[in-house]
């Protein structure tokens, strides 16, 4: 026997032993009633490729409660690769950004049903309550979601909780700035099912941090109601249904909640434009940087030109009323041979009645979603075949501040039937998992679009794994809201868009899940072609009237990033998490409308002992290249005193603390502080800005809109 033969025999023996002693050789796996572990207490997740949506992070109900989140936006913020971006200081439009891509590329789903778009995506994310939620699954990358090809940055899926026991929860909180919150949740299981009811009432005053009378934090009055129905066996189907009702009014700009009075006050100057950093030399108006005068401008003693403001409270205010009803029904049935049939339906009706600085905009949006999905094993391969149909429309009308009526400016109706197939297979004793899929959609405007994706997961050991994903997604731009939510001072929109936005995405993630620690490192590459743009400053070449051109960038937007999160359990009661992210952006200056940082660092401590449950979260946000993002070379921005805006924003820290104390079996106390250090953007630079010609805007964002806020409350688990 030569050396090589002897050596190979040793290997064969070792492999045989490994097989003989591997756990599967001892399997006694009777699949009784089981619950799949979707993530641990903090929801970090080793990826798993069987599902239609491949989760990269998961936020548990316990985590939502700890962070005192009332809405989706508050629940997902401050995680590596996940952020909430505010885009307007007087209406507080907020988006969930994944991998630092614009928020419109994040698809929001409820129980796997995508039911938010354009108008509802602008303000609606603040209106997704988290009472009765089991967890929130996040999937970063266009290659992670089979059923949502338009999710170029990824998906956020809110999973409803099927209650196992009766629950009656009431929680009331109050805090600074008129913060009032009342939550109620009722769950009643019965033989073969359960029903739930959830309520969230939320109030917050509008805030003015720098004393100029123009608020930076939009006030709101919000009522969210929800009903859930869970039936374990109806015709063989396990059903989960959900009905949500939303009623919200938010108002920003002029302070106060007297919205009728604000809307009708359209002349005079109730504001002090000289207050705050970079304030004007005169409370009456602001400096015109280029010195070119127009009727009504005033020349100051030093020769500078002042543009007086005379638009009243209403001219600086945005007031948005929203009513929304949505219903979701998902049914799953197990079939012979290990197959599973899934049917899903979604419906949403979203009404918005808004006042934008004198312009009135009334929109109605409808969305339907239907999906049929069959999963069936063929040998060792699990095949998923599906069909879905997405319908969404938007119809709007309104009138401009000068009284002229406008109708259908941003109307659209998209009908998108799509079919998909996915194959999943585990190889080498489940050490390698492969998931390949392809879907084809037939969009009524943009035609046929094919989107493939491939995921591979290699388990280096039980605790460590690597996942590689490549994928393509597409998105039909919907104009107006997702691009610019306050551009109605236009008479028509010219559409110069021939192609959908296309994303090519590649990512690698390394995961380690030990007994005391967990590590996830992700590398992401996203390239978006045909990036949609809205130019609201165009004029009609014939009439000279203001128009808006809806067009596409000639260059792709490329965002590359690396993020990491490491959790270590110091004791049974104390756990710490350190996270960091670094991103690189390639884009034509100005295409990405809002600035983003290159780096962020996160630190979190969870202390859970006795009757106390305390969490401390610190986020450091690095400088943002404002000059590049806002294209100062072609569109310089100025403070109200005519000085240039900062080229680069300063870095800053935000720390949130929240604690819960269990008084007895039924009562708990809640105490917390948001933004403990109290840093606000207005301490360094106002959100308000003017261009060189003195035109005014409210969208200069890089820092917190609200300072330190204390709150306290009580919770009863009855």
């Amino acid at each position: 026997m030569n050396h090589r033969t002897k050596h190979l025999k040793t290997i064969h023996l070792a492999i045989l032993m490994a097989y003989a002693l591997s756990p599967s050789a001892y399997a006694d796996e009777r699949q009784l009633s089981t619950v799949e572990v979707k993530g641990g207490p903090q929801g970090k997740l080793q990826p798993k490729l069987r599902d239609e949506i491949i989760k990269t992070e998961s936020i548990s109900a316990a985590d939502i409660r700890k962070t005192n989140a009332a809405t989706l936006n508050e629940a997902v913020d401050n995680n590596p690769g996940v952020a909430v971006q505010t885009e307007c200081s007087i209406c507080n439009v907020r988006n969930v950004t994944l991998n630092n891509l614009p928020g419109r590329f994040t698809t929001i789903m409820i129980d796997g049903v995508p039911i938010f778009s354009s108008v509802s995506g602008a303000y609606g994310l603040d209106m997704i309550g988290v009472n009765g939620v089991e967890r929130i699954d996040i999937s970063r990358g266009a290659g992670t979601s089979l059923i949502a090809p338009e999710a170029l940055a990824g998906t956020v899926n809110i999973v409803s909780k099927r209650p196992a026991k009766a629950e009656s929860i009431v929680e009331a909180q109050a805090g600074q700035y008129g913060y009032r919150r009342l939550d109620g949740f009722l769950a009643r299981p019965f033989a073969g099912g359960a029903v739930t009811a959830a309520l969230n009432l939320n109030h917050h005053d509008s805030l003015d941090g720098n004393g100029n009378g123009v608020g930076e934090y939009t006030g709101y009055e919000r009522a969210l109601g929800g009903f859930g129905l869970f039936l374990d066996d109806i015709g063989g189907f396990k059903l989960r249904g959900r009905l949500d009702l939303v009623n919200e009014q938010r108002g920003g700009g002029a302070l106060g909640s007297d919205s009728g009075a604000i809307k009708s006050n359209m002349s005079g100057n109730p504001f002090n434009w000289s207050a705050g950093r970079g304030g004007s030399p005169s409370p009456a108006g602001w400096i015109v940087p280029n010195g070119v005068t127009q009727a009504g401008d005033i020349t100051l003693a030093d020769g500078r030109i002042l543009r007086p403001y005379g638009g009243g409270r209403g001219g600086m205010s945005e007031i948005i009323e929203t009513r929304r009803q949505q219903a979701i029904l998902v049914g799953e049935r197990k079939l012979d041979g290990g197959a599973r049939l899934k049917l899903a339906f979604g419906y949403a009706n979203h009404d918005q009645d808004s006042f934008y600085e004198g312009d009135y905009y009334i929109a109605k949006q409808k969305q339907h979603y239907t999906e049929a999905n069959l999963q069936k094993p063929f040998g060792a391969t699990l095949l998923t075949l599906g069909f879905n149909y997405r319908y969404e429309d938007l119809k709007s009308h309104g009138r401009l501040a000068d009284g002229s009526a406008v109708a259908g400016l941003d109307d659209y109706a998209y009908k998108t039937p799509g079919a998909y197939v996915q194959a999943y297979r585990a190889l080498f004793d489940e050490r390698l998992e492969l998931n390949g899929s392809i879907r084809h959609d037939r969009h009524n405007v943009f035609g046929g679009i094919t989107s493939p994706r491939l995921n591979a997961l290699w388990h280096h050991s039980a605790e460590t794994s690597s996942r590689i994903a490549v994928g393509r997604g597409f998105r039909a731009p919907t104009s107006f809201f997702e691009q610019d939510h306050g551009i109605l001072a236009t008479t028509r929109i010219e559409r110069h868009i021939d192609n959908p936005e296309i994303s090519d995405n590649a990512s690698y993630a390394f995961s380690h899940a030990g007994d005391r620690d967990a590590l996830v490192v992700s590398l992401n590459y996203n390239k978006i072609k045909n990036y949609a743009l809205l130019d609201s400053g165009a004029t009609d070449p014939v009439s000279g009237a203001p128009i808006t051109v809806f067009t596409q960038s000639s260059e792709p937007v490329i965002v590359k990033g690396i993020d990491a999160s490491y959790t270590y359990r110091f004791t049974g009661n104390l756990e710490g998490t350190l996270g960091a992210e670094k991103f690189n952006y390639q884009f034509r200056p100005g295409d990405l409308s809002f600035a983003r940082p290159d780096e962020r660092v996160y630190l979190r401590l969870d202390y859970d002992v006795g009757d106390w449950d305390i969490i401390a979260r610190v986020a450091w946000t690095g400088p943002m290249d404002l000059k590049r993002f806002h294209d100062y070379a072609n569109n310089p921005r100025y403070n109200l005193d005519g000085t240039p805006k900062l080229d680069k924003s300063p870095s800053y820290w935000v720390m949130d603390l929240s604690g819960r104390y269990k008084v007895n079996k039924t009562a708990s106390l809640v105490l917390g502080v948001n933004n403990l250090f109290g840093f606000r953007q207005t301490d360094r630079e106002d959100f308000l800005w003017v261009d060189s010609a003195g035109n005014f805007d409210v969208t200069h964002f890089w820092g917190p809109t609200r300072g330190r806020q204390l709150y306290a409350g009580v919770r009863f688990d009855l």
Partner: protein
Amino acid sequence: MTNVGCNKRSALHRHGCLIGVLALLFAANAQALDFELPLVDGGKFQRLSNLSPRITLVNFWRADCPPCIAELPLLVDAAQRLGFRLVSVALQTPGETRAHWPRVPGSPGSHVALLGPSEPRGLLRRFGNASGAIPYSAMLRPDGSLCVKRMGEIEQGWITDNLAKCGT
């Protein structure tokens, strides 16, 4: 780490040797299962291999898993009566665990109640549960090796049937 003598051989040998080492590691993994997790009272960490040799049933549970809650009293009772050790691993926060078990039942030695890790899938996979579903239990021989595993709720008969098998 032990030098296995692969570094001076040909590329083919090195490759083959690597596979062999991996296979042996995998085999070793099945022989001795271990973890280090904190006790549910938030105190010290407990290493499984530091417990005295005894048949041990490691049970993974969560409070929001109805079959887990249904089987736990049976397991606690059976451990006391039949003389094996129950190690329960709660895959949830300390607070959620305390809410379910203000006082952990069981006599000293028959029940060791632990908190699972933040990301439990690595631990579950190590104990032979690649799917991540619970309730899940693994019965270990006195030497710590895996004897039998069970996905789903356990009945009394399953315990008695396997105690004899795993004690040998």
